[in-house]
């Protein structure tokens, strides 16, 4: 493959790398697994890059390849409890808008999302990225109606995880 292609790929990936980091954060726990998945996604993106025609945004195209890698191709090396990473993720105390209660809620919410299965995570991920149901459905290969129904179910599931007694 030509050097130009390589250059253009590396540059675009570098600029859009937070997408991949976010997926890694959702699907792995711990730094090693995060780096591992990041690398695998990068390789898969590079392999698919010649087919990327630029008629969609690099990021849109990258979502699909990255999610497919995380859900389908990547082999998790070990499973451990899902909560470690977000405990360590703290906002700066000198943040003006710092709100202790909100911070607590966020932590619980991240934990809840972590308990979803691989497919549910993909849906939630795209929802958080503000994708519409059309794109979500197309990426996963399901119908739009079913994507919507499933998303509502996931919301219900998250509510249940957050508040198991339903108070």
């Amino acid at each position, binding site marked *: 493959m030509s050097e130009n292609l390589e250059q253009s790929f590396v540059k675009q990936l*570098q600029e859009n790398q937070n997408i991949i980091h976010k997926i890694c954060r959702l699907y792995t726990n711990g730094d090693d697994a995060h780096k591992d998945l990041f690398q695998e996604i990068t390789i898969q993106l590079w392999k*698919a890059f010649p*087919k990327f025609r630029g008629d969609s945004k690099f990021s849109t195209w990258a979502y699909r390849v990255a999610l497919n890698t995380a859900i389908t191709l990547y082999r998790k090396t070990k499973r451990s409890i899902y909560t470690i990473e977000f405990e360590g993720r703290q906002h700066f105390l000198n943040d003006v808008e710092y709100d202790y209660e909100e911070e607590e809620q966020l932590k619980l919410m991240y934990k809840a999302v972590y308990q979803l299965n691989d497919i549910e995570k993909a849906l939630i991920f795209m929802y958080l990225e503000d994708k519409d149901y059309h794109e979500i459905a197309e990426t996963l*290969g399901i119908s739009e109606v079913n994507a919507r129904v499933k998303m509502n179910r996931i919301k219900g599931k998250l509510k249940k995880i957050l508040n198991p007694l339903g108070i």
Partner: protein
Amino acid sequence: MKELDLLKKDWQKDDHSFEQVSEIEIYKMIHKKSSSIVKWILIISILEVLLWTCLSVCFDSDEYLEKIQHSEFIPYFEVLNYANYAVILVFIYLFYKNYILISTTASTKQLMKDILKTRKTVQYYVWYNLAMLVFSLIIGFIIAFVYNPEMEVLKEKIAENNKVMAITIGILLLISLLLFGLLWLFYRLLYGILLRRLYVNYKELKKIDL
């Protein structure tokens, strides 16, 4: 859902909490080898095809037939052999075609389907070979039993005593079952490990789309 909105807001804040990977590191990454399950499935599948092809090519029936002085069977075996090669070629073509279909840019469901389809092709190939193996065993046994002079002693014994017949068939069955069992276990373990997560996720996606 209030909490979800809160999460969405926090999610979209590009707060650079991730350790940024440099361009040089990305260069290095794209030259590394993938460890994706597709690669492993491909490697194992090629080994499988090679193994079974080797077995069917290496098994030389002509010599045996000449030894027992019934070379009139040789043309039949030759036809069978060529038919077998044709089938092998068709399988290899199908396997290759399925493999190049696998693309990460397809939808998640399609990608899973394509991977499972590739796997299925190889599986059919293995079943085909097993069937051929059983078929050859039966033919081999019949030829040995009917035409091989060395079998006369056994034949006489069977004529004398029904028990010997039962034991002979029993032993043959046991060996075949044992072979099948071992192979089945081997595949379960091998692909169970590789494909378990894929199956789980595929089922989940299919459930959503009912």
